């Protein structure tokens, strides 16, 4: 029995066009509803264009990426072009039952297309090996930080010696924000050690084009120098549980003077004796709030306006630091409670607030939020 | 132009073919199965060696590489008949028993190849008895070790020891089941010099189990 008759392809391209248009229309509608602009969509498609990576060694990584990219694009156009060409050029004409030349192979051609790809990958390998030596190089460093990864927050310990608890000068408990995160001096080499307390995590800063796993029982360490002052967002990049997506942190690269001032203040604060907790009757009405599994027990609180009140805060997350901070509608912080590590309780004395809607948030876990209606 | 249907070389409902390679399908199948089991043990051995290479104890405040852990070293000398606390240490006799069972197995195989059905059944029965004895001695050994504090959770040494020897024991048990079937079918007269594929296959398996034990014994006790 012979081949089935060729189906009518006349309507094929039209149908393809229709489907593409339909799907594109849905996409445009949903994007618009979500607040996307043509500019934001366009920018999304070129995430590395015009973005300079932030550390000295990341430039080597970017160069390597660019070379691989151009070779990949060239190969893509060549091979894809051959496929598309063949698909159009060698269609069987209707009614043509004659066999084409039955070619089984061609040794010359086969050797060529084995040797050339081998040469290309050998080149890429050597290039990437060389780049690796740059990226992984160990240098003398001025600042030594231990990034501690734990479900589900990062903290940063500044060391004055090899990585051990005895050498910790102070701990930066809050991982994000202007008064949290890892402060380092811009333009100076920094050594980061990774300590994982429970499961495997990974330290990843996209703008550094770099990540390294934090493995329990293993000390991973790496050096880098940030080129340009700024704040760089980082995130855990190894699945560590339900809170994996919430484990964000900031790296603040500041000038040497700012860093020194900050550093000295932190050392002093850590060495100072903690002020005794204010005791006495709770002031004003009491609001209850608890924290467990990296979320608050309620997302909606009520509080009276124009009078101080107390938040009885219970941290039920064993081993995890939490607090309650309150921000007004413009994002200014109007209250920040002490951070306590669970299981623990603390009463926060919140000053009087004007009527309005405020956000309460955990300084350590910015994904833990809720709303306080003050009236 | 079309080939004759009788050129298809099949005979018998079991689709047993003896191709030009000579080896029967069940034997080839068993060798391939043994290959997969070798890879299974390879994974366990790789874990053992990796853990062993990295195992350290703090001795005099210094982290030192040591293996086995100091508290268990006295349990791993196969050449003493009793442990320090007076319990019987039968691992060496057990090993010798398993080794002899391979010899009897091979003797049985050679017997059926020359159509000596009685000799074959006897030899395989003896093999089975020796195999079961090995299992009993191993079980006894386990109880001694656990009494002395070596358990699955007692450091990674305990974990790897019991996992490796335990899975070996499970394979011996499976082999014993196969040997029983061979002995039963042998007694029912189902094997002959011409048709004894299963006997060949099971013999291969039994030797494999023995070789794994030799490796285990050397690695756990001697090295």
């Amino acid at each position: 029995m012979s081949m089935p008759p060729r189906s009518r392809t006349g309507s094929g391209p039209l149908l393809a066009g229709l489907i593409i248009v339909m799907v594109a229309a849905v996409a445009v509608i949903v994007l618009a509803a979500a607040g996307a602009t043509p500019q934001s969509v366009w920018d999304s498609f070129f995430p590395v264009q015009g973005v300079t990576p932030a550390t000295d060694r990341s430039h080597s990584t970017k160069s390597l990426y660019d070379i691989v990219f151009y070779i990949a694009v060239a190969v893509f156009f060549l091979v894809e072009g051959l496929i598309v060409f063949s698909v159009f050029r060698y269609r069987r004409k209707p009614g043509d039952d004659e066999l084409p030349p039955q070619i089984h192979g061609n040794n010359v051609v086969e050797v060529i297309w084995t040797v050339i790809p081998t040469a290309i990958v050998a080149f890429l390998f050597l290039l990437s090996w060389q780049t690796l030596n740059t990226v992984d190089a160990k240098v003398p460093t001025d600042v030594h930080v231990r990034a501690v990864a734990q479900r589900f927050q990062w903290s940063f310990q500044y060391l004055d010696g090899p990585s051990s608890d005895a050498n910790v000068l102070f701990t930066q408990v809050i991982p994000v924000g202007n008064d949290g995160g890892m402060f380092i001096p811009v333009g100076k080499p920094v050594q980061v050690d990774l300590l994982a307390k429970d499961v495997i995590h990974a330290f990843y800063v996209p703008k550094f084009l770099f990540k390294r796993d934090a493995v329990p029982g293993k000390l991973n360490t790496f050096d880098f120098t940030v080129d340009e002052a700024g704040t760089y967002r980082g995130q855990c990049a190894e699945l560590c549980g339900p809170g994996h997506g919430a484990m964000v942190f900031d790296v603040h690269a500041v000038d040497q003077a700012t860093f020194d001032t900050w550093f000295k203040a932190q050392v002093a604060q850590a060495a100072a004796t903690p002020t005794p907790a204010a005791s006495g009757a709770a002031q004003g009405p009491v609001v209850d709030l608890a924290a467990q599994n990296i979320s608050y027990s309620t997302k909606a609180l009520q509080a009276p306006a124009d009078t101080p009140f107390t938040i009885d805060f219970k941290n039920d997350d064993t081993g995890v630091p939490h607090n309650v901070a309150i921000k007004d509608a413009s994002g200014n912080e109007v209250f920040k409670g002490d951070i306590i590590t669970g299981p623990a309780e603390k009463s926060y004395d919140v000053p009087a607030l004007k009527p309005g809607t405020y956000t309460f948030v955990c300084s350590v876990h910015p994904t833990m939020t809720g709303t306080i209606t003050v009236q | 132009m079309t080939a004759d249907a009788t050129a298809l070389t099949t005979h018998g409902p079991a689709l047993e073919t003896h191709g030009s390679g000579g080896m029967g399908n069940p034997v080839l199948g068993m060798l391939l199965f043994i290959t997969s089991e070798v890879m299974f043990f390879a994974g366990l051995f790789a874990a053992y060696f990796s853990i062993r290479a990295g195992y350290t104890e703090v001795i005099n405040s210094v982290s030192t590489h040591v293996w086995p852990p100091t508290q268990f070293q006295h349990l791993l000398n196969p050449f003493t008949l009793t442990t320090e606390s007076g319990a019987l240490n039968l691992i060496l006799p057990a090993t010798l028993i398993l080794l002899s069972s391979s010899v009897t197995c091979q003797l049985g195989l050679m017997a059926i190849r020359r159509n000596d059905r009685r000799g074959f059944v006897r030899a395989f029965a003896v093999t089975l008895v020796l195999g079961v004895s090995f299992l009993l001695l191993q079980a006894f050994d386990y109880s001694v070790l656990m009494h002395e504090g070596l358990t699955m959770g007692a450091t990674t040494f305990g974990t790897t020891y019991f996992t490796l020897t335990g899975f070996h024991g499970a394979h011996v048990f499976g082999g014993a089941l196969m040997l029983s079937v061979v002995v039963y079918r042998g007694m029912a007269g189902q094997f002959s010099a011409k048709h004894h594929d299963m006997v060949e296959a099971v013999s291969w398996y039994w030797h494999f189990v023995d070789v794994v034990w030799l490796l285990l014994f050397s690695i756990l006790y001697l090295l």
Partner: protein
Amino acid sequence: MATTTLNPAAPAYRSALYEWLTTTDHKKIGIMYLINSIIFFLAGGILALIVRLQLVIPKDATTIGGLVSPEFYNQAFTMHASFMLFLFIIPILAGFGNYAVPLQIGAPDMAFPRINALSFWLLPLGGALMASGFLATGGAAASGWTEYPPLSGAKFNGPGTDLWIMGLTLIGTSSILGAINFLVTIFKMRAPGMTLFRMPIMVWTILVTSVLVLMATPVLTSALIMLFIDRNYGGHFFDPANGGNAILYQNVFWFYSHPAVYIMILPAMGIVSEVLPVFSRKPLFGYKAFVFATVAIGALGFSVWAHHMFTTGAVFLPFFSLMTFLIAVPTGVKMFNWIATLWRGKLTFSTPLVFATGFLTMFLIGGLNGAFSAAVPVDFAIHDTYWVVAHLHYVLFGGSVFGVFAGIYYWFPKMTGRMLNETLGKLQFLIMFIGFNMTFFPMHQLGLAGMPRRIADYSASAGWTDLNIVATIGGFTIAASILPFLWNVLVSLRSGRIAGDDPWEGNTLEWATSSPPPPYNFDHLPEIRSERPVFDARHGQAAAH
């Protein structure tokens, strides 16, 4: 060419259901593999839609949560991958092997038919065990399909993980038994005249795949058992506090799981290598080179496992980088061989060729974006980001799944005696192709922009929202494409055009018998003088060599 005069639909004296439940016929078993696999494909697809709905927009800038809880989300992507890899892709390719290999080598069945049946039935059983995790306390396995300890340990995850381990052990056993069956069948039961180098490429790919299954899957079993012992019997294999090593699991796991990806692609390449010559009316270009390339990929596949672990700080990086780059060479050779098969051919774009072409164009992209990960410093940037999600889906979906659909449209007539509808088939391809690229191409950008994998939510200020919207719409487009496919199958089973023995003018022996074939496969076999015995019989020796 040979046709059979027997009516394959012999009157049954037992019910059809009983016959299917107790069959040891490789053709029926192969079809059951296909059906079971497609069921898990649909289940895995629904889980993927849940993932895409969760990620379409950030719930709000600062709150995790939304469609499903983060706990359930982790189960969703874990089981999505587990279903797709272990219960869809690997078994469906084994199912094609089961159906096609005995026919293509001129054998009446597989070497061990009863073990063949056991291999199949272990699959729904293992799959049910794995899936039952959703009903367990704490839900299904939720540490990614890779299940790295310590996260997958008893301290952080409940019995769903144990059910996953047990189910996977059964599935692995099914694979290994199948591999033994294939190897004995291929080595011992070829028809006279069919030397190894006259076997169809499909049979070669199943051969090499079976070697990989035989050697690699038991290593996975050992990793699973060690994890099970750590979880349930106080073991310390992966517990650094007691002499164990968390990275050890990754090494043992990936020693299997890298060859596993070749298990997932080689038979699909085999299918493409069957379809291209038939629909170009030319032989496969460079048959021998193709065989050597397949063997090379299989062998090299065992030497690259640690490229999944470049960021652990525990790997000898240059070696694994080199081997990973090298494996691109035999893969490239195959690509060029396929294009050369099309070159100067006379192409008929029936649905099998349409999907095979889709395979070529999409697998190319998957291979190219993989090269970035082989360059270690670049991997430091893109590992565990959506770039990898893009890569794996371009090779597994753009590659294997398109290959699978090519096989379905190619062999459905042989299996059922009826043709699938061409228009619906091409419609499926069109919608699927558009949806697939829309879903996964933007993930390259998302990875470069820094979006990590396996996160249940993200910040609105990250700039990832737009592409996630596009990807979600793409995902639902893929789902839409399944509808014409299912409709096609159901309608064609009842009223598709009668296929006859050889509707495609095929090359290989399965087209020398009826559709569907009789239980013992062949009445007569044509003479076997090349890898295209049916082509030779049709065109006589003059047109062939």
